[in-house]
C-alpha cells in the first residue's frame, strides 16, 4: 500500500513538473527570452559560481577541521608519526594548489561573465608563463618524491635483527597466528599438510616446527620492533592495521612482510581514548569473498614483561596430540616421505631470505 502511495505521489510530481516545464517554455516564448541568446540566466549562473565557492569552501574547511582529528586513527607506531608529518607536508602543498586554482576558477567565471560591450582579450600563448608553471610544480613534486622515497625506504627496509617475529596466515575468513616458540625459529609449513587439526600446515618433521605455537590473538611488546610475516593459504588478503599505519597483502605462494614498532600498549590507548573496551583491530583489506567484511583479528600491545609472561605460557605444537597424529596420516597422503618436506624447507628459507630471527634479548632469558 505504501509503495503504491509513493508511486502515485511520484507520478503526480512528474505531471506537475512536466506542466511547469511547458509553462516556463510558453512564458519565455511570449517574453522573447526563448530566442534571446544571452539573458538573465547568464548572470544568475555567474553569481551561483561565486556562491558555490564561498558556501562550498566554508563547508569544506569546517567539515575537514570537524572531522579530521575525530576520524584519523590515533597513531601507535614509530613510523606512523613520520607518515603523519609527510601527510601534513603534502596537505600543505596540495592545500595551497587547491585553494589557488579553485578560487581562480570560480572568481574568473564570475568576473569574466558575458557583457554586451566587452570583447574577450585575444591571448593565445606565452611561453614564459608556461615554463614557470611547469618548473615550479616540477620542483615541488621533486621534493615530495625525495621525502617520500626516504621514508619509504626506511619503512620497507630490512627489519632489525632482534625483532619479535609473528606470522599471520590469511584464510577465508580469519587470520591464523603463529609464533616461533622457544628456538626463535619458524618451522616449515606446507600447504599440502593442512587439515582440520593442522590449520597452518606445519611440517612436524622439521624440529623447528615442534615448538612453534599458534594463538588466537596477536600479542606484541611495546617499544620493540615487530616483524610480521604474512602468508595466505587460499586467495589474496591484506593485513591492515590503521592504528599502526601497517598494510601488506597476503599472497598465496609468496610470503610477504612488514615491520613496525608499537608505541602505545592497549591499556595506554584505552586511557588515551577513554574507551575501556578498545582493542587494536586488524582488518582484511583485499576483497577475499563472501565474509570479507568480517575477516578480523585483534592485536594486544603488552608491556614487555607482560608479553614475556604471555609467551612463556603458550603450549607448543608438540603438546598437541591431535596434530601429531593427523600429521602422520596427511604427510603420507601428500607423498612426503620420512624426511618431511625438506624441499619445502629450503624453498621457505630461500623465499623468506632468513633462517631465523636472532633471539630477542629479553626472550632468550626465558
Amino acid at each position, binding site marked *: 500500500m505504501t509503495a503504491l502511495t509513493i508511486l502515485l505521489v511520484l507520478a503526480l510530481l512528474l505531471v506537475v513538473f512536466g506542466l511547469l516545464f511547458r509553462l516556463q517554455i510558453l512564458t519565455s516564448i511570449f517574453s522573447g527570452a526563448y530566442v534571446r541568446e544571452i539573458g538573465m540566466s547568464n548572470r544568475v549562473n555567474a553569481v551561483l559560481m561565486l556562491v558555490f565557492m564561498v558556501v562550498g569552501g566554508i563547508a569544506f574547511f569546517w567539515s575537514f577541521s570537524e572531522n579530521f582529528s575525530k576520524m584519523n586513527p590515533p597513531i601507535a607506531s614509530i613510523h606512523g608519526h613520520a607518515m603523519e608529518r609527510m*601527510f601534513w607536508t603534502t596537505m600543505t602543498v596540495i592545500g595551497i594548489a587547491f585553494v589557488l586554482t579553485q578560487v581562480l576558477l570560480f572568481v574568473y567565471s564570475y568576473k569574466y561573465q558575458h557583457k554586451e560591450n566587452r570583447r574577450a582579450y585575444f591571448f593565445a600563448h606565452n611561453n614564459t608563463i608556461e615554463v614557470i608553471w611547469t618548473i615550479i610544480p616540477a620542483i615541488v613534486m621533486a621534493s615530495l618524491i625525495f621525502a*617520500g622515497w626516504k621514508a619509504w625506504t626506511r619503512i620497507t627496509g630490512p627489519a632489525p635483527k632482534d625483532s619479535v617475529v609473528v606470522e599471520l596466515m590469511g584464510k577465508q575468513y580469519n587470520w591464523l597466528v603463529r609464533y616461533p616458540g622457544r628456538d626463535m625459529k619458524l618451522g616449515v609449513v606446507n600447504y599440502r599438510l593442512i587439515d582440520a587439526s593442522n590449520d597452518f600446515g606445519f611440517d612436524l618433521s622439521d624440529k623447528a616446527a615442534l615448538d612453534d605455537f599458534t594463538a588466537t590473538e596477536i600479542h606484541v611488546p611495546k617499544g620493540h620492533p615487530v616483524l610480521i610475516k604474512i602468508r595466505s593459504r587460499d586467495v589474496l588478503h591484506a593485513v591492515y592495521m590503521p592504528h599502526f599505519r601497517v598494510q601488506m597483502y597476503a599472497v598465496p605462494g609468496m610470503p610477504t612482510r612488514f615491520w613496525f614498532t608499537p608505541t602505545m600498549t592497549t591499556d595506554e590507548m584505552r586511557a588515551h581514548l577513554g574507551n575501556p573496551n578498545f582493542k587494536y583491530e586488524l582488518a582484511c583489506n583485499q576483497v577475499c569473498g563472501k565474509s570479507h567484511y568480517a575477516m578480523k583479528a585483534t592485536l594486544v600491545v603488552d608491556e614487555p614483561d607482560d608479553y614475556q609472561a604471555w609467551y612463556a605460557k603458550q603450549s607448543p605444537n608438540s603438546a598437541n596430540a591431535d596434530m601429531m597424529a593427523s600429521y602422520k596420516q596427511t604427510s603420507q597422503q601428500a607423498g612426503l616421505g620420512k624426511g618431511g618436506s625438506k624441499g619445502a624447507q629450503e624453498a621457505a628459507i630461500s623465499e623468506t631470505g632468513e633462517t631465523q630471527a636472532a633471539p630477542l634479548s629479553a626472550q632468550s632469558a626465558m
Partner: protein
Amino acid sequence: MDWLQPFLGKWIEGGKLNPEFYLSLVTMHGTIMVFFVLTAGLSGTFSNFLIPLQVGARDMASGFMNMLSYWFFFLSSIIMFASLFLETGPAAAGWTIYPPLSALPQAISGSGMGMTMWLVSMVFFIVSQLLGGVNYVTTVINLRTRGLSMSKLPLTIWAFFLTAILGILSFPVLLSAALLLVFDRSFGTSFFLSDIYIAGQALHNQGGSPVLFQHLFWFLGHPEVYIVIMPAMGMVSEILSTNSRKPIFGYRAMIGSLIGISLLSFVVWAHHMFVTGMNPFLGSVFMFLTLIIAVPSGVKVFNWLATLWRGNIRFTAAMLFSIGFVSLFISGGLTGIILGNATLDIQMHNTYFVVAHFHLVMGSSAFFGLFAGVYHWFPKMFGRMMDEKLGYIHFWLTFIGVYLVFMPMHYVGIAGFPRRYYSWTGFDAFSQFADLNKFISAAAILAFFAQFIFIFNFFYSIFRGRRATQNPWNSTTLEWTTPIVPGHGNWPGEIPAVYRWPYDYSKPGAETDFIPQNVPYSQTASSNMPYEREMED
C-alpha cells in the same frame, strides 16, 4: 527493503542484501562504469561522431571496421548484462578481478559462470576497442581535409587520437591477462595460482604468481583511466574556449601535456600495487614516475584557467559542465599526490580515500566531460537544442551532489574504512562513523535523481527541442559548416579546406568574434597577424 524481493529473489531474502551479491554489484558497477559507460561513451561515441566532422572527412577510414567495432561492443554488452541473471550470480571479485579469487569458483560463487561470462564479454569488448582505435588513428592521420595539418587540429581530435593510441597499446595486455586467466580457470595451468588450500582440498597449482596478474591488469588499468579522462579533457578544452570567446591558452602546451600524460600513463601502473609485496625498490621508481604526472596535469589546469581569464563567458549548460569538470579534476587530482606517495599509500591503500579520489578525478569529472559534450554537440546530433534551463538545474544539482558524496568520503577513508566492505559493524574502529556514511548515501540519492532531469531533457529535446541553427555556439571548427544535421558524406558539396587554427576567437581587428577554420586569410586582412598569410596550394 522487502519490496525488492520480487526483483532480486534469493539475493535479498528477508529484505537483507546477500554479501556475495553485494560484491557482485560492486564488481558490475565498476566494470560497467569504467568500460561500458565511460570508455565506450566518451571515446567510443564521440570519436566516431566528431573525428570525421572535425577533420573534414566524409566518413571514418573504414566504415566496415566501424560497424564491426560497434557489433562486438553490442555483443559484449549483452553478455555482460546477461551475466546479471545467472543463478550463481555475476562476477564478484571486484572490477580488478584479482586471482585467485576470480580463478576459483570454490572461493566465491560469482567466480563460476559469472566470471566466465565476464571474461568472454571483456574479450569481445577489447576486440571492439582495438577495431575502433585503429580506425580513429587511421582517420586522423589519413583523412584530414586540405590544409588541416596536425598543428591545426582541434584539441578534441588530439585527445581522441592519443586516447586511441593508448587503447591500442594497452588493451592487448588485458586481453593476454584475461586469456591466461581463462587457462588457469579451465585448463589447469598455474600462471597466477600457487600453494592453495581451499574448500578442504590442496590444489596442484604451484609456481604461479597472483602479483603477475596485477602487473598485467594495471598495465591496461592505469592507461585506462586516461583513456577515460583524455577525451573529456579534449572536449572541455574546446567548450571552454568557445564559450569564453577566447583562444585556448597555450595550444601547443596543451598538446604537449596530452602527449606527456599519454607517455607517463604507461609507466605508472604499479602505484596500484605499493603494498602487494612487490620489491620496495620498484615502489620508489613508480612513486617517482607517478608524482611526475602532476606536472603535465597541472599545466592543463593552469591553461584552462588562463583561457577563462579576461574572457567573455557565456554560461551554456555545456560550459557549466566544463567548469565543473575543471573543478572536480582539481579536487580529485590533488589527492592523487597523497596516494601516489608510496609512504602515505600504506595507510590509504584500498580505503574509501581511494574510492573518493578516483570517483572525483576519473568518475565524476569524466562524466561531466560527457555531459558537456552531449549538451554542446546535441544540435549537431539531432538538429535541435537541449533545454538550457533544465541543463542549469541538472548541472547545479549534480555538481553539489557529487561534492557532497565524495568530499565526506575522504574523511571516511582517513578513518581507515576499507572499500568493498558489506558491513562495518564487526569493527569498533569503523562502526562509530556510520552516520557520515548515511549522509553520503543521502547525497548520492540526490545526485541520482538529478540525472532524471537530464534523461527527460535529452529525449524531450530530440523531438520537441528548439530547432538549431547551423552554428548555434558561433564556433570555429569544421563540424559547424555542415548542414544542421549532416547527411551521408557529411558535406553535400566539396569538403571545405582549412586555413587556420581552430581557436580564432575575439581576434583583434576581426569583424565577428570568431573566424571559422575554413575562412582563408585573404578574407580577413584586417585581423591577420604578420606571419599569417595564405599557404600556396
